[in-house]
């Protein structure tokens, strides 16, 4: 009956070795991820950018209807790929030329960039994407206003 403990020891040793091997490429990926988190794309804004707190900004929420219903940036207009044709009218009702548009989704998602590209194709300018998405906005709000 000494076979099972010896198998367990062998398994633990193997697991440790595999984990250590995985740490090597993971360390490079982590450094890259950290650099990317600190680098902004040309059309991206952080919560610290003055444009974010400007009064005339039109906020566009590129997430799902359910996520929007759970909570969104004050005054944000829902606009996503699922109901693009239906929701686009709401944006045009609110938007006026030269009013900047800031699109957001969840942190790490691509939907905001996608919606921003589609809006640019329609000729709307200027359009920005909020880095960190709704989570970044929420973290910067006083607790009482949530």
């Amino acid at each position, binding site marked *: 009956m000494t076979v099972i403990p010896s198998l367990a020891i062998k398994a*633990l040793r193997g697991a440790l070795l595999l984990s250590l091997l995985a740490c090597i490429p*993971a360390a490079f990926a982590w450094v890259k*991820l950290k650099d*990317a988190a600190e680098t902004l794309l040309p059309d991206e804004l952080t919560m610290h950018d003055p444009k974010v707190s400007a009064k005339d900004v039109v906020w566009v929420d590129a997430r799902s209807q359910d996520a929007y219903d759970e909570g969104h940036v004050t005054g944000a207009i829902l606009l996503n790929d699922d109901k693009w044709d239906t929701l686009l009218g709401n944006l045009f009702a609110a938007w006026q030329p030269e009013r900047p548009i800031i699109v957001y989704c969840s942190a*790490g998602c691509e939907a905001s960039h996608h919606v921003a590209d589609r809006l640019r194709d329609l000729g709307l300018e200027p359009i920005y994407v909020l880095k960190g998405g709704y989570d970044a906005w929420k973290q910067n709000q006083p607790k009482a206003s949530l």
Partner: protein
Amino acid sequence: METKPAEGIPLMERSPASSQSTWLRNGLPLLLRLTLGGIFLYAGIMKALDPGAFVGDLRGFQVFPETALPILAAFVPYLEIFVGAALVLGVLYSGALFLSGGQLLTFAALLASAMWRGLDISCGCFGRHAGGDSVEIGLLRDGILLLIWFALVWIFVRQGAKPRQPSPDLIGRSVYDV
């Protein structure tokens, strides 16, 4: 003219029951570990291609602290790749089984907790490139993989607990020796 069998090749008539038992002993475990290993490899590669998106997927579960997200998003995909490769190649097999079980149980717990809390998120199982499956689909798939994993552990312990005997069916070393 009667043809003689080539020298050195033993003539072994096998009964259907014998070939069936060889299949169960060698073929099925091989198929199971290639399936599990292949899925781990694929999942790891797809996540490693877009670690930024995986950060977002992990954040969606609302259980990890913000500082841990980039570390997990960098480490988990490569752990899956190494575990998958070890399962497929039969190298460090016992360690790969141990880690794959740990990961599958962790994913199952995460997905079940997301379902329980009614979170509307994608499971993040295969990264964004492969399209996001729902939590329910992810949990179902995880359950099936856990069944495969249990079968592999049972075979491994059973074969590992027995004294090893040289078998003419096995070429080279068995994965259970590693």
